[in-house]
């Protein structure tokens, strides 16, 4: 309970470079993982299908964006389009009878290929201009998907995902989609955690911070910028396939509009740019705050009889969403991850608050 760092000394590099060097952290991770695995058996199905599942999927996608924005420092306002490319590719492949596992990779590869095109513009421009370029590309991809019935699925512009299975388990009902998404989310999370302790991740940070200094160390800025775009687009495309198969079950162009891109950027920023844990916090807040606010208002109305005009009530979540983005940027630009680490650090050394961490 007290001073959780006490008595821990590492004698080998390997120990020190572990993902979670503190035993208390390893314990927490195990507990969370155990909870997530047991969740379908202890929680009402509602919480699985409409809370945990989207949380997992959105977090995995946001992790991909986080690698690009937080890791390599490249702005991307068209990530929704990247996810869309993956989803459409994968669904078309599955409808052609290709198994889910391959279709998922195919979606990732297609998104990665087009993501490279997005990224190519980053070789010439950066900052604000890159933001504008990716924003414009979002619109162009939207246009292409809508305009070609062969892609969007005919006049109804809706494509059903055929029944598929993952590693032999049919993806249907409430539980299997959840476990499939959880498995993939775990893989992506591990990848993102590992990135920070390998030469690949360090090269990305070097590019983000000072690309001229990176290049004199031997890091090719072009190569690593493109690689960052490729990897993050691949993750996006992969998650597009998972999103379509495990969550939406039918895809239509409006699922991948600019709103999704903005939402993901907001998640990454509210969570804390560059933080893996922060992404999960950010996604939870952005995804669930409007729903909870709605219910709170309904509860207040039910219990106190205090009602708001319908228009105001309906728009409060939107204000909250915008307000959250602004509030975090102004008051805690490092996001929820920073708030968490403040609290954690406080308790790590509690009750000796002035000890060095």
């Amino acid at each position, binding site marked *: 309970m007290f001073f959780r760092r006490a008595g821990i000394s590492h004698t080998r590099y390997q120990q020190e470079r572990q993902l979670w060097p503190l035993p208390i952290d390893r314990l927490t991770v195990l507990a969370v993982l155990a909870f997530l695995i047991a969740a379908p058996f202890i929680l009402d199905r509602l919480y699985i299908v409409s809370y945990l599942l989207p949380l997992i999927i959105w977090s995995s996608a946001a992790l991909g964006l986080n690698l690009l924005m937080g890791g390599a420092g490249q702005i991307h306002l068209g990530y929704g389009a990247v996810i869309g490319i993956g989803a459409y590719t994968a669904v078309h492949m599955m409808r052609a009878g290709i198994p889910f596992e391959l279709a998922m990779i195919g979606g990732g590869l297609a998104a990665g290929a087009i993501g490279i095109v997005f990224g190519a513009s980053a070789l010439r421009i950066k900052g604000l*201009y890159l933001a504008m*370029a990716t*924003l*414009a590309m979002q*619109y162009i991809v939207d246009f292409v998907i809508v305009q070609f019935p062969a892609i969007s699925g005919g006049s109804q512009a809706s494509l059903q995902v055929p029944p598929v299975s993952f590693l032999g388990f049919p993806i249907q009902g409430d539980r299997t989609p959840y476990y499939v998404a959880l498995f993939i989310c775990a893989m992506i999370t591990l990848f993102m955690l590992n990135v920070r302790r390998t030469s690949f991740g360090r090269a990305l940070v070097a590019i983000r911070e000072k690309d001229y200094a990176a290049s004199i160390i031997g890091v090719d800025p072009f190569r690593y910028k493109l690689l960052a775009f490729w990897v993050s687009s691949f993750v996006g495309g992969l998650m597009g396939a998972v999103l379509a198969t495990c969550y939406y079950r039918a895809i239509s162009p409006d699922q991948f509009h600019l709103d999704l891109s903005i939402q993901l*950027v907001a998640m990454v920023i509210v969570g804390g740019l560059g933080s893996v844990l922060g992404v999960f916090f950010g996604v939870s807040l952005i995804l669930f705050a409007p729903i909870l606010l709605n219910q709170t208002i309904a509860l207040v109305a039910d219990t106190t009889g205090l009602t708001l005009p319908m228009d105001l009530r309906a*728009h409060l979540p939107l204000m909250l969403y915008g307000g959250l983005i602004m509030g975090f940027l*102004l008051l805690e630009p490092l996001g929820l991850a920073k708030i968490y680490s403040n609290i954690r650090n406080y308790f790590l050394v509690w009750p000796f608050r002035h000890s060095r961490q």
Partner: protein
Amino acid sequence: MDVILLAELAINGVFVGLMYALLAAGIVLIYKTSGIANLAQGALAMTGAYVVVMLAGGLGLSMWLAIPLAMAVMFLVGALIERVALRRMIGQPVIMVIMLTIGLEIFLRGLLPGLFGASVKRLDLGIPNAPLFLGDLLLSRALLIGGGVSLALIVLAILFFNSRLGVIMRAVSDNQTASWSVGIRVERAIAIAWGLSATMATTSGVLWGATQGVDWSLSLLLIKALAIAILGGLDSMVGVLIAGVLVGLAESMATGILDPIVGGGTRDVVASVIIVLTLLLRPHGLFGREHIERV
């Protein structure tokens, strides 16, 4: 191809382009002084239009009183936004500032319809809708007036940049620290830029609101304004004027010529293609100064 139709499309395109350019001019004004691209400019136009509707409809003011009053209110709103939010963001990475303006956009899009009602509101400037024929050529009065007012305001903005205050703003945009050291109140100049920008957005919101009615979708004007600002060069007022005409023409012609070929509305995608091509071929735009962060 029908020549008269082409002429009509061209004229419409030019005037519509000018109306978009007015919104883009606000973006340029802010970028010139503080290096921030304000992605809430469309939402400011919406806010301005809502304020006009509320003053005119809610308080029963005449339109000609409501509009100047709304412009004054919006000047304060713009300056307030700068004071409360943007000033704290100095020194933060670009993405943070961009996201702040996006957050503001979302917030305003919730606040105004939430307070004043989401249904489309009428904003009548009293411009007759009856068609005006020039031989076989039809001109829309609303577009002529809207484009004309926009042109006048943009020219005013260009002249303003040559006035004393304008020179101060130019100094601020060139080098904030240096401006500080010669006694220019940089914060005030930037706040004024935001105020003016919000005022221009209000005009733009009123002009568009008169055609389409006032609701949240006014904030969607942003993408066109961005295309114009980028094509013209983010720091050039003259660029905005010319890019506005070009983008308006391109969109209008695309609708007339491309749509039947593609079989879909190409209007918005034209703006996006213009943005991408500009950024790839000439990132500083037609008239911008070449001091872009390059790789």
